[in-house]
């Protein structure tokens, strides 16, 4: 399997197949990143398309010494932040609506255990509502870390911040979410 950096180099030289390979490799992660942040399927698809076109146009400027995921999510984070600032005309869908619409969920839906399913739905709803109240860059940092599993250094590169700023954002976001969910206790 060819390295992302090699595929970018070939894309810059006009190789359409290399570009397709990049889209196939990172398209699902990118679309999921947008879907979780903007909560609307059409918006997530539009943003995914915008992301890869921007990537295609900037392929010649990419330097392989920077990690590809940081480069990709730098563009994605900017797109998501600007989308969240201007607010879409399309309504945001809840996680339950997305789950009911047939989107995959990593934890399953406990259909055989109704009590667990209810508890899970309730927790998800509270988490979702706590997330929605966070500033957009905190949500982006959380999604990059927990959803995309990027390292602190990669998140810092993607968000144009220092590693210590990313660390601080993540702690504050988690404290806020815990407080909103009525968990986490008071600090001594």
């Amino acid at each position, binding site marked *: 399997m060819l390295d992302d950096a090699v595929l970018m180099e070939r894309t810059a030289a006009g190789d359409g197949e290399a570009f397709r390979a990049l889209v196939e490799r990172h398209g699902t992660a990118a679309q999921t990143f947008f879907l979780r942040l903007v909560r609307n399927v059409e918006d997530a698809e539009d943003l995914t398309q915008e992301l890869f076109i921007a990537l295609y146009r900037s392929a010649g400027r990419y330097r392989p010494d920077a990690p590809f995921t940081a480069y990709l999510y730098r563009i994605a984070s900017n797109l998501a932040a600007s989308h969240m600032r201007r607010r879409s005309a399309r309504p945001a869908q809840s996680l339950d609506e997305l789950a009911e619409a047939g989107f995959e969920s990593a934890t399953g839906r406990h259909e055989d255990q109704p009590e667990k399913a209810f508890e899970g739905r309730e927790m998800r709803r509270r*988490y979702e509502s706590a997330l929605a109240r966070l500033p957009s860059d905190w949500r982006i940092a959380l999604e990059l870390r927990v959803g995309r599993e990027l390292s602190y250094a990669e998140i810092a590169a993607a968000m144009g911040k220092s590693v210590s700023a990313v660390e601080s954002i993540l702690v504050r976001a988690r404290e806020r979410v815990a407080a909103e969910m009525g968990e986490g206790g008071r600090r001594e």
Partner: protein
Amino acid sequence: MDCRKYRTLISRELDGEAGESERAGIARHVESCAPCAAFRESVRRAASIHGGMPWRAASPTLVASICAAALESREARAARGWLRFALPAAAAAVFVLGFWVGSLMHERYGGESASSLASGAAGLELEYLDEYPPGSFGDILAASYEGGLE
């Protein structure tokens, strides 16, 4: 107890960024600090909920549409790039051609037209001077213009 510091460490631990000694420090701290123990539990639960949030595979239709749009944007850019050079070149060509045609015209008709213009102007001047009634201020000025006052 420095709970601020431990909350940062708990967050680092969850992200796999804490070292062994930091993890041991957290374990010791949460044994005696219920709020931090609750925070640790809460962030773990939140991470698990977050991990279970919906995801969506990029459909072959979306992949195809992205690739087609990228190709289209490359063609549009290539066309724009061509125009970027073609338009100034065309403007320069028109300028050079205009200059060349102007030189030719000047060579062929330039002297004749200049002298006819001069005589026309002189005619106008005389006509203008002739209009003053005799003895008027204009007439005196006209006389001085033509030959100087005596």
